[in-house]
């Protein structure tokens, strides 16, 4: 693995972490919307 691969790995990991968190938030938002619908 040359040094440039480490650079790409760091950038990809950064976006993977943010992407995973945003996915978790989106799932949570869907669940809350469903709960609101149920309450209505």
């Amino acid at each position: 693995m040359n040094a440039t691969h480490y650079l790409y790995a760091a950038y990809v990991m950064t976006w993977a972490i943010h992407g995973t968190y945003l996915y978790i938030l989106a799932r949570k938002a869907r669940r809350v919307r469903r709960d609101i619908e149920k309450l209505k």
Partner: protein
Amino acid sequence: MKRGFTILALSTAILLSFALYAALVIAPTEQTMGNVQRIFYYHVPSAWVAFQLFLINFVASVIYLIRRNAKADMVALVCAEVGVVFCTVVLITGPIWARPVWGIWWTWDLRLTLTLVLWLIYVSYLVLRRFSMSSQTPLLAAVLAVFGALDVPLVYFSIWFFRTQHPSPVIGGGGSLDPRMGRVLLYNWFAFMALAWLICWTRYRLEVAERAVHEAEAMQSLREGAR
């Protein structure tokens, strides 16, 4: 509200794209480390954003302890959660940078260890918030956050006062940074701040909605119990 969110989301996407371009293309290649040094443009701004969010968490926790304000409690929770995400980025990109430069993924150096401790403190804060059902949870979490925040200056100043493996601060710490690198660092900092602000806004609105749902559900079960 929706329009403001769209504008912020679009500006953040543009800022992040430009910051990425600046980090990979505009910034000059460092002579000793080569291209791997460009990890710096993600590692350092992520650390700064995490520190800022933990600082806001601290202020909001103090406000909660004084006034028992629910909004302050929500701000504290949101900042801790998003701060942990940024701190995770720091703890992942750091070892990826260290491996080709130091020859090791990790060392129990003061700054690295304190950063890991900081992450663990805020993860335990979130675990407390998530699994404790007591009405005292926000109060306990606020106290934990106040003590946890003490670690932030320790992490930041550890490389000023102690000899560590970690490089000296590039700004204000006697380190010399090429002005072009400094500019790219600032672009990335602004871009990640915008991203953090966008996520915090979204997460705050979600928290408000979630608490309203819980309240409505509790009212509904009370009404059903009274019948």
